[in-house]
């Protein structure tokens, strides 16, 4: 009652509303301080430490660690793994996105869920299943031994496990985008007489290229950096089946700190490059949305 009889000061009302819309200065600055120190502690500090530790015994020790034959072999195997994995999963991602977003069929949502499955499986289990299939005691173990084919403790096992781990990356970027785009543009091209392949190259591809590159980028980062799954199938044979992350582990466990962090610095560099490219691609995608 008293609120009604009291004369209302409009300026006071506006000020009160402002208070309810904005956080007080002290709150704003303390939240910013919390956020910034949290990120600094958990992200900036680790990044800085890699560089400090890698160079702890000077630049020469760093270069020596990097040019060691085992390190070079690990880099080669990592590059080989990514070179096989990324194209395979990219082709799959595009095919799956095309089938799922351009057609209606039964079991579509189940298929989408199954594609995401590798994300919810622990990396160690992802490695284990290939040991169960191709290990010495595995299902195809006897056959593989009889034919002298090595998958577990060899590069092919590492590649297989990596393909499994990075399976959903490209498909996951493309499916929501192509769903949202709809198929009118492609239908127009087709009805004007373009072939299916031409329609894909001239209409679909330009529309999805940034999301596709984004998916490829994430897939590549994970393929080069995967540790758990690869460590189960690799057997840690120096110079033969060590990828760069495994090489880092071996060196660290042998207290070869410069060696471990020299390898780690390459992987951290890869992560930084990935982040920079990712930010650029996000800008491109945002600009592309602005075109409509």
């Amino acid at each position: 009652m008293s609120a009604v009889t009291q004369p209302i000061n409009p300026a006071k009302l506006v000020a009160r509303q402002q208070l309810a819309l904005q956080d007080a200065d002290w709150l704003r600055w303390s939240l910013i301080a919390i956020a910034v120190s949290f990120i600094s502690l958990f992200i900036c500090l680790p990044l800085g430490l890699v560089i400090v530790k890698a160079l702890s015994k000077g630049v020469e020790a760093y270069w020596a660690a990097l040019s060691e034959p085992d390190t070079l072999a690990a880099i080669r195997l990592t590059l080989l793994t990514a070179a096989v994995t990324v194209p395979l999963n990219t082709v799959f991602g595009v095919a799956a996105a095309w089938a799922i977003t351009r057609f209606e069929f039964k079991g579509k949502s189940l298929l989408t869920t199954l594609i995401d499955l590798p994300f919810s499986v622990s990396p160690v289990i992802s490695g284990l299943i290939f040991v169960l299939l191709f290990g010495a005691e595995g299902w195809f173990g006897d056959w593989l031994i009889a034919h002298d084919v090595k998958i577990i403790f060899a590069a092919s096992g590492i590649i297989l496990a990596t393909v499994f781990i990075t399976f959903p990356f490209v498909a996951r970027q493309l499916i929501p985008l192509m769903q949202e785009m709809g198929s009118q543009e492609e239908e127009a091209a087709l009805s004007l007489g373009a072939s299916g392949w031409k329609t894909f190259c001239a209409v679909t591809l330009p529309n999805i290229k940034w999301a596709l590159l984004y998916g490829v980028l994430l897939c590549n980062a994970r393929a080069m950096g995967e540790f758990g799954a690869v460590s189960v199938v690799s057997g840690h044979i120096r110079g033969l089946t060590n990828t760069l992350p495994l090489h880092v582990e071996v060196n660290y466990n042998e207290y070869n700190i410069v060696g471990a962090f020299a390898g780690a610095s390459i992987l951290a560099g890869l992560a930084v490059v990935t982040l920079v490219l990712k930010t650029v691609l996000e800008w491109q995608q945002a600009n592309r949305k602005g075109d409509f």
Partner: protein
Amino acid sequence: MSRSSIMPGFRPTIGFTLIYLSLIVLIPLSTLVFQSFQLNWDDYVHIITNKRVLSSFRVSFSTALAAALIAGFFGFIVAWVLVRYSFFGKQFFHALIDFPFALPTAVAGIVLATIFQPSGFLGKLLIDTFGVQVAFKPLGIVMALIFISIPFVVRTVEPVLLEFETSMEEAASSLGATRWQVFSKVIFPNVLPALLTGFALAFARGVGEYGSVIFIAGNIPYVSEIVPLLIVTKLEQFDIEGATAIALTMLVISFVLLLLINLLQYWVRKRSGQL
């Protein structure tokens, strides 16, 4: 089958998708199920109820839960600050959020172990000032999992906060709500489903995480040994049956938890009128 008959390429793309999915994911994963059929029930129970196995499950799930809760709390603050406020270097911090996604887990592992070990930069500081040892304890595992979890929370909450209509806040405040009421009754309920999703993703990832944890954990049986490590240990001892039984149990528990969290999310969405 296909709605628009003009669209080409259904058969080859769906064919390739199904074959590739079966070869890479479904057949390999099903081996886990078939392999465990070779165990009889008593053997299975014997493996799983082993004290060391049970304590590894306790360590894995409790540390993942703690880390997801902490990351959920701080991740929300980080997302809020990045969306609502402007300050110097914001873009830089924004780009850094994804660093734990991009950084290979083994690198994260050795870096965190180096920082938090008793002679390390922060490890020494924490022992000297608070008498708290982080490395080789469950607390170390929590630290590693928080690192891994940050982007999951921030990246799921951020878009919801961005799209949140300030007109709703204006309406609430013009009706006389205080800032705290606006936050707790208008903003938070709308962000909660996304926060739960981020929490669930972080938790699921944390339970299975291996690379970033093993270096800082010290892997002391009954204290800081996680389930994935126990699977690897069993494999290295050529105890395939033990590894399979533990792996299958972990997979099933994770799926059930994810299902429960999805249901919870559905319920929250429904209650807040988003469905």
